[in-house]
């Protein structure tokens, strides 16, 4: 659905994207992770046609560059900011963005109803958007990107600043999109979210792709060995090993162990190992 091939982009002397290639398939949620300044935004902006790459190409569903307005109609973009008109109602916002995307008449009315249901805002449709809660605005922000039923959806940190309940609701909606054979590019600072819903994860830094694969692949390839932690006589000892069970067996045969646990690498550890930085600290 989306192919980025050998993208390069430079702003003056600063290289923002340096030979990045990536594909996103239908029915797939691809997580895009990277520290601030890693080149995520530039990559996304090239993917949606806001920026022209210096070199390389972007192709949407084999129809060419999103710089072409007709191709942009296949995209749905939910910016990180709540990009809505607060003085308009949810229904008016959705109708407006639907019209801008070329919808009209019964098709527009039908899609607006769908989007209101998607955002669970049917009963607040005529309230001013300014009066909605943060979670409601986030859902509406996403619904506005989907009102024209795009095939490729780019969600930029759609759960920032929402309560756990709304966050779960948003994640469930994103998973529904995968079921509807949509291709989703999902950027987030929450590792647990990425691990929970993304089929594959791309980690980029300094404009380059550092790793790409499923969570299991990434942990396996970049997470390092598990750590066996044993407590002997009140003293904790950490042992990195590829065979924690065998190592524990050997320790037990040698003497008494008060307690033990095995620590395995997770996505956060992979990220830290690859970029040298924690994602949330940026």
């Amino acid at each position, binding site marked *: 659905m989306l192919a980025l091939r050998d993208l390069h982009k430079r702003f003056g002397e600063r290289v923002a994207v340096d030979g990045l290639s990536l594909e996103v398939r239908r029915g797939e949620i691809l997580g895009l992770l990277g520290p601030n300044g890693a080149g995520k935004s530039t990559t996304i*902006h090239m993917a*949606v*046609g*806001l*920026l*022209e790459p210096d070199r390389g190409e972007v192709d949407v569903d084999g129809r060419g560059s*999103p710089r072409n*307005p*007709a191709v*942009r*109609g296949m*995209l749905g*973009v939910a*910016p*990180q*900011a*709540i*990009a*809505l*008109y607060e*003085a*308009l109602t949810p229904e*008016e916002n959705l109708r*407006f*963005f639907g*019209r*801008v*995307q*070329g919808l*009209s008449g019964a098709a527009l009315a039908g899609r607006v109803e769908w989007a209101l249901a998607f955002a669970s805002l049917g009963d607040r449709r005529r309230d001013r958007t300014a009066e909605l809660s943060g979670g409601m605005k986030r859902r509406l922000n996403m619904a*506005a*990107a989907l009102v024209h039923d795009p095939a490729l959806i780019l969600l930029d940190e759609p759960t920032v600043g929402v309560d756990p309940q709304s966050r779960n609701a948003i994640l469930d909606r994103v998973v529904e999109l995968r079921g509807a054979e949509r291709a989703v590019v999902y950027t987030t600072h929450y590792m647990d979210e990425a691990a929970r819903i993304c089929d594959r994860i791309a980690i980029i830094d300094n404009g380059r792709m550092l790793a790409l694969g499923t969570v299991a692949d990434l942990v396996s390839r970049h997470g390092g060995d598990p750590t066996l932690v044993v407590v002997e006589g009140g003293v904790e000892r950490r042992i990195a090993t590829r065979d924690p069970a065998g190592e524990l067996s050997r320790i037990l045969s040698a003497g008494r162990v008060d307690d033990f646990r095995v620590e395995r690498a997770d996505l956060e550890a992979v990220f830290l190992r690859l970029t040298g930085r924690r994602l949330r600290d940026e």
Partner: protein
Amino acid sequence: MSASRIRAILALAGKDLRLLSRNRATLFFALAWPVLMALFFGYVFGGGGEKGRIPVVVVDEDRTGESTRLVALLTATAGLEITSAPREEATRLVRQGKRSAAVIVPAGYGEAAGRLFHGAPRKLELEVDPARTAEGAMLEGILTGAAMQSMQELFTDPSKTLGMVDRTIADLGSAPESEGRDSTRKFLGELRSFVERPRPAQTGEGGGPGWKPLEIERREVRREKVGPSSAFDFTFPQGILWGVIGSALGFALSLVTERTRGTLLRLETSPLSRLDVLVGKALACFVAITAVETVLLLLGVAFFGIHPASWLLLAAATLAVAVCFVGIMMTVAVLGKTEQAAGGLGWAIMMPLSMFGGGMIPLFVMPAWMQTVSNLSPVKWGIVALEGATWRGFSAAEMATPLGVLVLVGLAGFALGVRLFRGGEG
């Protein structure tokens, strides 16, 4: 341009107008504030006063009881503001627009009033500005009514009636023989007998074929373009320009807000081009400015004595002002990167343009050098266009310069805005 693209641009404009209608602060500065300014400065400069009465100057050259009675009747008539002056002074006052009309009671008016059914009728002269046809017609009606009232008094007072009949019969004795003379004499004899009978007086329509109680000789006195008839004539165009500036800067800020809130990103990732987004914004701004101008002008015409010299030229001025300030809005919107920057930049540009352009002090009270500098300000040309179509009474040729300047500035601003905005595309 495809139908869906036009629909999308109209949706953009409709959205902006809806947002404007829900923004009380912008509405206040676009509609209420200009009116307050126009009224405040209007009263400061001596406008206002009692309205709704037609200012008329009366010249009494007859100086008889009849003419004095007519002047008293006019003075007592609600809707007329009567002053007296000699003939030349009265004509000058009408020409300068200080009086709507002059009523001249020539010598012989009282004498003619005494011979009712023969000879030349009573005669009045009316000088009226041709641009004030409604007031002229109303005044003719009032004068005819006053004459009828004078005639009614003649018939309801038997001694006056008998005096008039006797004078007329005596006059007829010296008139040449004719069928009309004999029938008039016979009628007057019957009338004398009727009046002398001790019975209640009856009133009725008098006069034979072609007879009328009063002849009004009407002349047009074209008003000279010497100055406004009231301070509102120049404070309303000033107020309108302030409303226009407020609307334009409101739209400039709205484009910046679209950028900072992220809605512009949504629009730019839709099938719309950046030019479409700007055209939609410009269309909404144009509609809003035109609506603001129309509302304020209608208010001025309805309640504050603004007189359009030409509705067509006034419409042209209104549209040209809208085009000009839409263009200025586009440039300010694109140059400002944040709301604060755009707001600051907008007022930094508009305040001096307004100060030197007559937005604060009327152009005609500025010193000569400042009037020369004001030529650089589109605010000046906006005010000149609106004043030209109202109290200055410009011809189409005279309007060409202000209208041309306004449209050119607007187109230049639009072109610059589009160029800068599209230059921001990656």
